[in-house]
Every structure is written in structure tokens, then in C-alpha cells.
């Protein structure tokens, strides 16, 4: 069980955990949190598997993850402002059909 495999498995764990709560949770802020955690999970898998051999790790996944992080932050910003707009319109922070849930 090298460190790479360990962290990759943690990444998978994060991915599934976040996917579960994305489906289950009703509050939009939690859904956005879940999306971010899911992103971190995927990035963890990407970088962990790059560290399998012991000499310097493969830089390409690192570049990919940096790009991914920037994309994630822009998506989060858009999601948050949309949540706020929905909140001002409907005084709820949940999607209409999740409200009773």
C-alpha cells in the first residue's frame, strides 16, 4: 500500500461521499460544498497516481489540477451568486421541488 494508492483511495472516498450528499442534501450551499469536495477528490486521485514512482512526480497532472482548481472556483462563484439570486427571489435556499424535503 504505497502512499500514492492510499491517497488515491481517499480521493475515491471523497468523490463518493460528496456524490452521496449532493444527491441527498436539499440546501443549495451544501450541494455547492459537495461539488467542491468532489472536485478535490478527483484532483486527489489525479495527483496521487502521479506519485507512484519515487523519482520526481509527473508535472502534467499537477498542471491539470491547477487548471481544475481555477475552474472549480469560478464554478463555485457562479453557483453561489445563483443561489443568492434564487434566495432573493424565493426566500428559500433550496430548489423548488426539494423544498418539502
Amino acid at each position: 500500500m504505497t502512499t500514492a494508492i492510499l491517497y488515491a483511495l481517499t480521493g475515491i472516498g471523497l468523490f463518493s461521499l460528496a456524490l452521496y450528499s449532493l444527491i441527498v442534501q436539499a440546501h443549495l450551499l451544501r450541494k455547492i460544498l459537495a461539488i467542491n469536495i468532489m472536485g478535490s477528490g478527483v484532483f486527489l486521485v489525479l495527483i496521487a497516481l502521479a506519485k507512484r514512482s519515487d523519482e520526481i512526480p509527473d508535472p502534467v497532472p499537477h498542471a491539470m489540477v491547477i487548471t481544475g482548481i481555477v475552474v472549480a472556483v469560478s464554478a463555485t462563484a457562479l453557483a453561489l451568486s445563483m443561489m443568492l439570486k434564487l434566495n432573493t427571489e424565493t426566500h428559500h435556499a433550496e430548489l423548488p421541488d426539494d423544498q418539502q424535503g
Partner: protein
Amino acid sequence: METISLLTWSLDGLLGLSLLWLAWRALTTPDLFKAVVLFIAFGLLITLVWVRLDAPDVALAEAAIGAGLTGALLLSALSRLDSTNSDPAPVNSGEAPVNQKPGRFESIHWWPFLSLVLVSAGLGSVILSMPAAFSGLSPEVNAQLTNSGVENPVTAVLLNFRAYDTLLEMVVLLIALLGVWSLGGGVKHKEPFPGTVLDILTRLLTPVLILVSAYLLWVGAHAPGGAFQAGSVLGAAGVLLMLSGWQLQMNIPVLLIRLILLAGPFAFIAMAAITMMIEGQLLQYPTAHAGLLILLLETLATLSIGATLAALFLGGQTWKNDEESL
């Protein structure tokens, strides 16, 4: 196979488990504020993991953007949420909402839970079955590193080998900002007077932050750092200023703000077009002064990333709709 001493193995195990535990707690605590704080802690912890996995560039980016800025965005959004239901149990229909109850087990929806356990087990076994030794593209990167104009392989990949990705990524930032602005007037950011401590702290910190960002930009060529990390530090400086009541957006002319926002993507596209004309290949820097061109691109990118991240933090109250002059 690196000989796993007990110490490193336990450290990694601890880190991994605490990551999972933090994530689970962040997603299921009834109190939203606690959830956000836990998420920020999660971000910091994952920065540690990146360091552990020899990915310093990513650690820097994660610390600045992943934990820092996203946390700030979440907190500011949380504060602007309609006060009636930002508390844990939204009092809308009286009955206690299902997933808000702290009870641990009866609130789990069994069907998605089981399917996701299966999915993660499957993916886990796939990870285990992957070949142990794997070098990926690092030999090619090292071979071409000399004529990429920079020593730091990650920056080389980001700004030379896969520069096209970075170009599109700058546009992603821009389109996210346009999306946020097109959603229009959010709740006005009512900032009370920040209090003297924060005010003095900001006055001291901002120049330091700008210096750090410039250093990160410069050092990116041969050591971990680069445009994104520098830009996010600059953005953090902007956020700090705005939090401490500086109405930045009021006194900078609108056109200048837009030009700064467009500086990064525009520079990339101009560079692409020029290199296309001269070298016949998109984004093929003449090897002699590739380093210089990359540095130019990076500075402009840092400027626009910083401005965009600060603007994203401001969110709703757009600078654009209180001026109709153009």
C-alpha cells in the same frame, strides 16, 4: 517500491482518514456556518496532502484559491443568505426537515448510499489494479524542458506545452465573472466600519501581499509558483481591502477595470494569433525568448486573475450597472 516506514505510513493514514472525516462532518452538520468552517479546514488539510505528494505548485494554488478564496466566497454568501432560514432548521412548514435532524443513521437514504458504496468499492479495486510503476509524461517533459523557456516543469506544462488549456481557462474565469454579473443586483454588500485593528492590519498587509504575489510570479519560472498562485494572492489582497470597507470599485474608472479583467485572456489570444502568424503554429514561442514571452503572459494573467477573483468575491453588486455611460 519505497520502503514504507511505520512513521510515514501512519502520517499518511492519519491525513487520509481525517480528510474523509472532515468532509463527512462538513457535509452533514446541521449548522451551515460550522459546515463552511469545516470546509475551510478541509481545504487546508488537503494543502498538506499536496505537499506530502510532492506537488508544491498545487499546494500553493490550493491554499490561496481552494481554501482561502472559496472559503471567503462561501462565508460572504452565507452572510447574505436570507436571514429567515440561514439557521439550521428552516421554519417553513413546521415539520422538522428530514436531513436536518442530528440523528446519525435513520436520516441516511439507503438506496443512494448502497449504490455509492458499490461505486466506490469498484473504483477502489480499479485503482488497486493499476500498474504500480508509472512514469506518465515526465520523461517527455524533462526532455523538452530546456527549450520551453522555464525551469519549473509545472509552469512549463501550464504555459508552454499545454498553453492552449490555460488560454481556455482564462476565458472560463471571464465567463464565470460575466455570469455572476449577469445575475445582476444581489444583496448590497453592507460593510460596517471595519474597526481600527482590521484597518491598520489591512494597511500593513496589502503591500506585503502585493510583494508576495510579485515574488511568486517571478519565482514561478524556476520554482513552485506562477501566474495562478500570484493572481490568487493578489485577489486575496483585493478581498481584504474590500472587507475592510475600501470602496475599490467606486473610484477606479470602469473601462480600466474591464481592461484589467480582459488583460490575461486578451494577452493569450494576441500571443496565439501572433505566434500563429510568425511560426505557423498556434502558441509556438520562438525558443530564443520563450521565457520572456511566458513572463509577459504571466504578469498580465496575474493582473486579470487577481481582479477577476476580487470581482467574483464582490459578486452581486456589479460595477457595470451603476454606470451606463458606455
